[in-house]
């Protein structure tokens, strides 16, 4: 259950459907470029990755 203690704005909820679709296309093309770069062996900066894997946490624990 969400407690609506601030107005999330219904417009902002609806627009996310379009934003997500556009983001999907952008990410798809970005991934394509990424794969091409990897194929040609271009060095890709992996710093500040968004993903936190549970396996990383376990490694930290050990």
């Amino acid at each position, binding site marked *: 259950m969400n407690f609506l203690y601030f107005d999330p704005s219904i417009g902002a909820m609806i627009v996310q459907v379009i*934003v997500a679709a*556009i983001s999907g296309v952008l990410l798809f093309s970005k991934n394509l470029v990424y794969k091409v770069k990897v194929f040609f062996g271009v060095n890709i900066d992996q710093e*500040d990755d968004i993903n936190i894997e549970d396996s990383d946490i376990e490694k930290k624990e050990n």
Partner: protein
Amino acid sequence: MSYKKAHPSSFRDPSGYVFVEEGVVKRSITPLYFKQYTTLKESGFFSKLFKNNLLVKHEELSASEVEIIIQPEQIPFITYPYEWSFNQYQQAALLTLKIQKFCLKHDFSLKDASAYNISFYKGKPIFLDTLSFDFYDKNKPWRAYKQFISHFLGPLLLASFHGSKSLKLMSNFIDGIPVKMIASMLPYKTKFNPFLYSNIYLLSKFEDKHNENNGKSKVPSLSKKAQFNIIDSLYNYIKKLTLKEYSEWGNYYQKINYSDDAFVLKSDIINKWISNLNSKKIIDIGGNDGTFVRFLKPKIDHALVCDIDVNAVNHNYKTIKKNKEDHITPFVLDILNPSASIGFNNTERDSFLKRIKNFGPDITLALALIHHMSLSGNITFDMSASFFASFSKYLIIEFPKRTDSWVTHLLDNKAEFKDHFDFYNIENFELHYANHFKILEKLPINNSERVMYLLKHKHD
């Protein structure tokens, strides 16, 4: 329900509130949030966040049927979004997205995305609001999306296009910069960028369109995969944002107007004084990019380094990140207009003075600062002395004499008003500072026109 007095900033979320008991910050959780709190705790999600240094650690002090009390790790000095440099702001935004993605993967979601949920501690941004985590409502859009745009993406875009000084706008918009305003301030060409078009212009249009529909519109369904897309693309875009500006102070120490010997001598004097006083908490006002704090030999627990120059602060933050330094907190501060108390009742976000008094520095450093305050800011010696005295036990202050090249330059800028600044001399300085401080030591720096003072507050 409770006898404890909630902190004036803690009233928005009914899940609980922050209170201060004998100087210790604690959090009370109401039964409204018990289910979330217990699940977060028992599923091990809290400890995952702790282990990744994403969320401030806490321990549970007590739990009853009506209230759970937790005590978070105490952060000695909270900085606010309008005091962050560009890269700090950027890292805070990325951290929020990182947490949201991690939450979604574990079927939780951030119910708000306020920039005030984050502060800097041990050289890194950290999420402070333990009660921001809620269950993920299947196929529901992210309710904090708009808040994220107006608190993070918007200010960062404005900084990127108009310079990092625009981050100061956040002190006037405590609930984030309105999306419509962001849209109006971006260059026309940004309309052709699909990412900006959808996240800013379309959002602004949709907000307007559905503004007065009084809850008639249905919240659309949005798959988790689609929400990941939004978050990933926000993350990728923000990560690549850069500043396009040049700083005159950014490489101050390369331009400094006294010889290397004088610099070494100055740092030797300060090192001796700090180590004699065994100071652990310091503030360096006008500390530029933190160069001087890095020259300190005694071990300091917390060093606050503030400067008016956003680029110098940014440089400091980058150095902290690169060297993995955990004792320096950099922030932007205009000494002639320090951050005020803002928000409802003027008590939500504390002023710089209130926070620095709570922090209670053992020593205040004011190096190469007094001539700027007095000659550029027209602040009298009496005013600056009483300002420093309001929070400093000891003050190390550097006085550049009238013959110093910087002082001469500043005085020449005054043109025909130059005569109004006759008060700027060492005798007057000592006379007025003596009203608040006792002069413990006074050492001239050889090969320069500057004098170092170690002062002690008269009432301490």
